[in-house]
């Protein structure tokens, strides 16, 4: 699967916007993906990305271009070849 970060969040991942993630099992949940990202990709300032088991306020999670609220939130299933985007809301103008 592919994990993308947008809206400034990529800065937390060494300015890399797109990460390929090999899943050990056929299907995992977003909750487990967040744990994996915390342990493997996120090197600094975790509080800018995570809060508790979830993402911090102001971050939208998109699974194949769908808001994760429509897909089951933390329980949303992710399969191989899925695309997950983490996007920080912008306020500038």
């Amino acid at each position: 699967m592919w994990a993308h970060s947008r809206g400034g969040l990529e800065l937390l991942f060494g300015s890399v916007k797109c990460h390929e993630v090999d899943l050990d099992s056929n299907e995992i949940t977003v909750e487990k993906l967040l744990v994996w990202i915390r342990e493997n990709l996120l090197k600094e300032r975790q509080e800018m990305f995570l809060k508790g088991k979830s993402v911090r306020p102001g971050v939208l999670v998109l699974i194949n271009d769908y808001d994760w609220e429509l897909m089951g939130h933390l329980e949303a299933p992710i399969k191989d070849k899925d695309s997950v985007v983490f996007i920080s809301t912008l306020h500038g103008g």
Partner: protein
Amino acid sequence: MLEQKLADRDRVPVRSAAAEDLRSAYTTHGLNSYQVCRYSRQLLVPAFGIAGQEKLLSSSILVIGCGGLGSSAALYLAAAGVGVLGLVDRDTVELNNLHRQIIHSEEAIGTSKVRSAATSCRRINSSLSILEFPNGFSADNALEIVRKFDVVVDATDNLPSRYLISDACVVARKPLVSGAALGLDGQLTVYNHKNGPCYRCLFPVPPPQSACQRCSDSGVLGVVPGIIGSLEALEAIKLASGTGEPLSSRMLIFDASLGRFQNIKLRAKNPSCVACGDNPEITEANFHNMNYEAFTGVAMTDEVIRKQVVSLSNSLSCLELRKRIEEKVPHVLLDVRDEHQYAISALPQSTNIPLSQLQKNSQELRDIILDDEKMPVFVICRRGNSSQEAVELLRNSGVNALDVTGGLEAWSREVDSKFPLY
């Protein structure tokens, strides 16, 4: 022919008695011959046509914020022939606005943004009716202003205003076109329309203060808000004229660096939303008491407040710094801004190590900076906030670090006005 059309121009609000008089025997709609000619190229778009133009001419659209987003939004709305255009902003035009705020010109520097924007819009379309709100938008005046309009465009640049505007639109039952831009990224959506979400449905809890980046800190490529503002005008025109499908329950995400637009499907409105849910907590009765700056922990202005964290005995003023440089007192001058900011302008003889690098490895860097532990390290940044963080960090690892109070902005004020400020 043209003279007659120009003479007709000012007299003809659509559907007024005067318009009836001037109505041609050749038409069955409310546009006179000047308006038919003026808007002909969009009358020719089948999905818009006469019916769309008539609706637009009798509609009113409020643009909140006359900056990067509001510039292109207001100009396109003026050109397209909106009936009444409302403009809100309490700021004045500054030199560093002009690269993106294309509605303002060099002559407008120092004058009201609303006045400057209104002048530009009238220059494009003198038949436009414009309502100017130069005192800004707050919980005190929000409902009163929003109620005068059919559609609201959020073209602001800060978090508390976004909550305030969304709540006001929910209470006043107005659709809200919301755009944002920063760096090379843009976002656009329509809130509070039919079964779509409001801003609070998506973001019930505000993000931490540290996640709220501003154009004045993070920068923005001028054309990016220009594109998003143009798209805001488009969505507002669609809503006002009943054309196409508004971007409700969807969000358009623009990545300028990759040249890519992504159109994502958003959740529906949340029945338990405190603003637009079934039992709202935010109502007309308590709206005036809302404090959006306290709720978000962010100020509505672009002003940066400097907080004194480091003790004064571990600080020195820019004048004192100049004295020590002139007297050749041995020291290290450490500039902790990011490299791309250091490249814009910096004090001679300064060493650049960004705060983020210091945070990663202050011990090792201490060795690089210093042979002598007692050597004073004068730490400077843009405004004097990051430098204080760096001083705390360095002092904790035994470095004799001192903060240059107020940073390079203070240097420019107190020592040398020729320092290139940004």
